[in-house]
């Protein structure tokens, strides 16, 4: 029952994303206009998919590290992605896919490094070590990135950072396809882990007594959530805040059980980011705002409102 209003909101958001924009597309030309088909539609779909991926990834990671302040980019992924992007620019790698691919590889590299740190001393992915390791790896990657930036050409790097700060300007059917092909597997793995993740909230030992194979669960959730995030970064740069706030919003409204939380977080994340991107590209037209700013400006009051409703009830 809860999905009906969400699905309706999703459709409404996508419709708004198609109809609104700096170019004036008369309604009659809607189905034939290349602006709609080549620009607005893939961009809206990509924003939706990335928002959904970040929302689901945030849910998974908050459950994994048992910390409501966890964000998908807390585990060093954004640092790794940034380093990958800068290396691609510094080496003048050719092709339009060099930057996203390098960012993806960088993010995955950071993920592997943090994973390895999480296994030190038989720690078995202790959440505290994951968090600390994530901060350390992120800082390390940022340091190397800064060193590279100071040694290489200035203008190209500035533009690489603009890309990294997140946005859907480069959206195309190809990037949509990449997400559609790539995201389902980690998504399915996370959804299948819904019940064990409910148990994990009690603590690792109680979860094991209630039947969760905690070691495998942590591995699967960590890998899936990180891969989803890495894919999102590869196509859209680093968009913070979505993975942090959307899980909380959904928990406040629909409760904390993961078999509800994952689907609602996907839809809510998608709606939120698609709406934010529409605002980002229309509110100061002809210019565009970075979408990460809009998510923060929209998200904070929304979250405060929900929090108030919940604490009053």
């Amino acid at each position: 029952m809860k999905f009906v209003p969400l699905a309706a909101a999703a459709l409404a958001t996508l419709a708004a994303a198609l109809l609104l924009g700096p170019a004036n597309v008369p309604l009659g030309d809607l189905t034939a206009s290349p602006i709609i088909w080549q620009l607005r539609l893939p961009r809206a779909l990509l924003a939706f998919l990335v928002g959904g991926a970040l929302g689901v990834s945030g849910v998974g990671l908050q459950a994994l590290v048992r910390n409501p302040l966890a964000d998908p980019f807390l585990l060093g992924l954004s640092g790794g992605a940034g380093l990958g992007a800068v290396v691609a620019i510094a080496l003048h790698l050719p092709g339009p896919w060099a930057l996203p691919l390098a960012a993806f590889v960088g993010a995955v590299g950071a993920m592997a490094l943090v994973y390895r740190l999480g296994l030190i001393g038989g720690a078995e992915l202790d959440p505290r070590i994951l968090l600390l390791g994530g901060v350390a790896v992120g800082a390390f990657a940022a340091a190397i990135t800064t060193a590279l930036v100071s040694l290489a050409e200035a203008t190209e790097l500035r533009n690489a950072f603009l890309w990294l700060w997140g946005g859907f300007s480069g959206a195309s059917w190809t990037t949509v396809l990449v997400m559609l092909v790539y995201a389902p597997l980690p998504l399915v793995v996370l959804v299948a882990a819904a019940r064990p993740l409910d148990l994990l909230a009690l603590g690792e030992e109680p979860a094991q007594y209630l039947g969760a194979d905690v070691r495998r669960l942590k591995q699967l959730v960590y890998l899936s959530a990180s891969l989803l995030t890495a894919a999102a970064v590869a196509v859209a740069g680093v968009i913070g805040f979505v993975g942090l706030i959307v899980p909380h919003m959904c928990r406040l409204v629909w409760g904390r059980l993961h078999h509800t939380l994952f689907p609602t977080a996907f839809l809510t994340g998608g709606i939120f980011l698609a709406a934010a991107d529409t605002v980002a590209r229309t509110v100061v037209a002809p210019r565009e705002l970075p979408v990460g700013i809009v998510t923060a400006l929209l998200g904070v009051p929304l979250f405060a409102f929900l929090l108030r409703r919940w604490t009053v009830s």
Partner: protein
Amino acid sequence: MDRELIVAVSDLTCRYPGAPRDALRAVSLDVRASEFHALLGPNGSGKTTLLRAALGLVRPVQGRAEILGRPAGDWSRRDLARVVGVVPQREENLFPQRVHETVLLGRYPHLSLFGGVRAADRAAVERALVACDAVDLADRWLWTLSGGEYQRVRLARALAQEPKLLVLDEPTVSLDLRHEMELFELVRTLVDGFGLAALMITHHVNLAARFADQILILAEGRAVARGAPAEVLTRETVERVFSWPVAIEPFDGRPQMIPLRRHPS
């Protein structure tokens, strides 16, 4: 007719990685259906280690731990959760939840991967709440419960697993007299009425003596005494294990321990 042997620990020796001494040394324990076992001993004597090893969470250096005839390490966690219901000493509560949601978590070992909650599951939850006298708490938020109510709810969750064995790790810590008595009486009722086996780690020597069928006393990883309360709780044993002078007085057919003052007035 022999009652079903649920947990069989024989000659178990365990050592944590990097530890100077064994945490457990050649400990044996048999728990059968309809038996209430109490595990006593000073802090650090290995009680929780014994629990973990018996449930396959710690690999023994020597000896065996078996559940229903199979080695504890061979059980998948899911299958084991359908046989043993544990009320751990500590758990976290990251996000607010209601009582009936928490008890439902006990049904998770019975739920299929993508299957939903069935009527049989809800019935099991209901039965568990009734058995623990917690039906009227069903819609309350966990954080509004008192200590005693909270323990009853956690016990109901373990019961919802429909286990053969209930394991409780120091369940009456920080409970007042009434709730402490109620909990022990509840466990006794479950053992007698439902044929469950129960294994409880507790510091409350006297209540263990009153309610348990068998007591195992551990000290520094070794089993000091095992058997019926009257056999086990002698003055010599208690004074040696707990390093404190006591007097033993019978009450209701069971030995009761009275600690003596070191510096009488």
